[in-house]
């Protein structure tokens, strides 16, 4: 079936199997491999992207469910001239990443978190990121990054 999704402002049209997940559409058909896959149970959040401005786990949706809609991935966060998004900058400045595998998902979830609550407490940040696992950082610097981005 043909699925049309606007990803990072660019319309993508691909013929895919009906069972194709959004994450596979993004990675394999649109060729944007910044979005990572960490699990098969929708538990890790590595695949988080924005769908119409809100963070979703792209492994829990079929590509067909996003037909005709807007998706933003990690590749669409920095400005065209390469300037990092404030959240990316905050992760960089606060050493909020180590291996970087969870990072695209974290950045997407964290920006969406701040969209809903511009001034979260530490507690709210920790709860808000509950669906995104990181095995490297112990979260300390991720939380710090998000709080820094909020006050930036």
């Amino acid at each position, binding site marked *: 079936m043909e699925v049309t999704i606007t990803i990072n402002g660019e319309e993508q049209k691909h013929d895919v199997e009906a069972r194709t997940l959004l994450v596979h559409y993004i990675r394999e058909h649109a060729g944007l491999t910044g979005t990572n896959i960490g699990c098969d149970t929708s538990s890790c959040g590595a695949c988080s992207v924005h769908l119409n401005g809100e963070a979703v786990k792209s492994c829990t949706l079929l590509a067909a469910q996003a037909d005709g809609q807007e998706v933003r991935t990690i590749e669409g966060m920095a400005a065209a001239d390469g300037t990092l998004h404030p959240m990316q900058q905050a992760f960089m400045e606060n*050493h909020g990443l180590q291996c*970087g595998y969870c990072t695209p998902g974290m950045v997407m979830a964290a920006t969406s978190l701040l969209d809903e609550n511009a001034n979260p407490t530490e507690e709210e940040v920790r709860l808000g990121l509950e669906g995104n696992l990181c095995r*490297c950082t112990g979260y300390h610097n991720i*939380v710090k990054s998000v709080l820094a981005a909020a006050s930036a």
Partner: protein
Amino acid sequence: MTITEDPATGNNALGNNVLGTRLLRKEDPALLTGEAVFANDMKVPGALYMAVLRSPYAHATIGSIDTSAALALDGVHAVYTGADLRDTWASPMPCAWPVTDDMKNPAHYPLAVDKAVYVGDGVACVLAETDAIAHDALELIDVEYEPLEAITDLEDALSDRVVIHDELGTNASYTWPLVIEENEGDCEAAMQNSAYVVKERYVQQRLIPMAMEPRAVVAQPEPFGGNMTLYSSTQVPHILKVMTALTLGIPEQQMRVVCPAVGGGFGSKLNVYAEELLCVGLARKVGKPVRWNEERSENAQATIHGRAQIQDIELAADENGKLTGLRVRLIGDMGGYLQLVAPGVPLLGAFLYAGVYELPKAFDFSCTSVFTNMTPTDAYRGAGRPEATYAIEHAMDALARKMGIDPLELRRRNFIPTVKYPYEAYTGLVYDSGDHDKAATVAEGLLDYAGLRARQAEQNVPGARKRLGIGVSTYFEMCGLAPSRVLASLNYSAGGWESATVRVLPTSKIQVVTGTSPHGQGHETSWSMIAAEKFGVDPADVDVLHSDTAIAPLGLDTYGSRSLPVGGVAVGMACDKVIDKAKQIAAHQMEANPDDLEFSGGVFRVAGQPDKEMPLAAVAFEAFTAHDLPDGLEPNLEEQVTYDPPNFSWPFGTHMCAVEIDTETGRTEVLQYVAVDDCGVQVNPLIVEGQVHGGVVQGLAQALWEEARYDDDGNLQSSTLAEYLVPAASDVPNITTGESVTPSPTNPLGVKGVGEAGTIGAAPCVMNAVVDALSGLGVTDIQMPATPLKVWQAIEDARS
């Protein structure tokens, strides 16, 4: 922070004073924008996808396998069973650590042939046009299994009631003792004659490393000449290259291993895996690229597990609490087969059982390793050292309780005094440096130990619902694996050196080639800092090349916190060697004696002649044009160093925490966590802290949540992230790190390594706090993980 004067060059090349600063990581922009390439991101046209059929039985003989239906599926290219591939392997998969001459090691092939020995053992594989088709095809393969009784209990396995590998005749793989011969019997005497003896059994539950990136493999035959490139999410590209060549009978010079970005390892990617060999073997067979990506539930079954030991420990002390003897009997669970370094893991712990304490040579250790019908185990963050530290630190608390004294006080009475360093330990190894009282005092202050004890006395009254517990642990880590001769004495089949090549390019930009292979540790940043400091240039002008055996052909990779104290030190030494050569060129150009030259801030100067100077850039260009070099000197500024350290490096530290336990629900909340990890000189404190945070949370997770659970039939009950409790941000506390820097005298940088420190300190710290909270209720024994149910049950049992 500075580096010490280097005797080889007479330099104290302080350049930009970049060492010791919190420089932001150069790895980050690519990782933050999705530009970084992980193995699974490789775009390889025309590749076939591999999927592996895994045994649903923990122990079963394999009868006939019908692959016809799978083969008939549209898009399926081939289906292979273990028997089909028998001729593909020049030898079984490697185990590089035959710890004893009589170690039993069953032949281990990428696909099982006659018998599956754990759930997840591969029995057949499919090549298809897409990943989805390959997985569809798996469902159509019909295997005749005859299930056998599964063995999942270590002691039951040792009884040989059911033997897993018939050809071995036993499930015991080896027994390895460490008893200092001339002191034989002293340990028994200590147990008989000491004022206090505690005797405990601790279970190191099986853990699943669960790096966020599942493994991924792409094998690509090059179009001409029979060469093969293997992209893999591995920690050990160099080891993998050698082992792939040997296992498949490929001339080593035709194998290239590349691991671009790697999404965490923690030891789980320190291995040579069936899927890597299958992809390469099949790519050769079919002449096309073959790729495989692991699913999370597959990762739980087919990637190594960690820990999995039963520890029986006896600790004796005199009436003042001074330790008099230590006996340890260990059973290590190897799982179904011996993986790459698995047999050596318990041995690494053997050297650290006495922790940071002065122990007379009344030490008696032995470990027996055993096969079971579970996923093979191997090195997981700390590898043997967290296990050993847990045992001694938990036993120290038991001893303090028995004596009725404060656990911190008991530790202080036994610390190896700083004046005794370098200290020859009971094992014969020499600890390079330590200041345990300092680390403990810093931690004590950060936690407000005295204040918390007072609060605890007020809070933990009979009937209180929430009880406060304070945990202390101290540790030593033997890291930077390291001296090749010592590794030889332990039968390890590789060296412990590391290689570095440093070149100053004609434009004076610098390339560092390292044999270490990072997966989140920030080597590009740290190695750039070392070179920048040495050459007096901006770290941005240094590029670090790694993790591609065609670009960095020599190396022993990244594990065991060896990268900085071995690989980073090699980088520093290679820089010195280049500077030495550059100095000869500069001296020649300025018509001076090389011995009269000083090098700092990137400029060579003739001592006492302020007008005579030559910047590195000019020297680099001279070296490149080679128009006017000293007689006999080779053009270009490039030097290689292979560094084999004279000793391990010995990080140490003290962790303390406060927990609160809800006695009605059994839930433990970590209120405060303090980590003082002394890893010697810190190249980049930002990175050091990050490593500590991550390590602490992995240790804390072992204490409270994580466990690979098997049922009696050998089925893994926790194979997804929904069942295996990797902590989330809301589960863990903020971590306070404290300053303690005791430079290592072993290497010229004074560094020690820190990747595993946090994990080593954390599990005993948290468990000591849990028991401390409940000991007033009569609870003295809770095994990890201290889940709410287990804690609640322990409280109930103590009440009745």
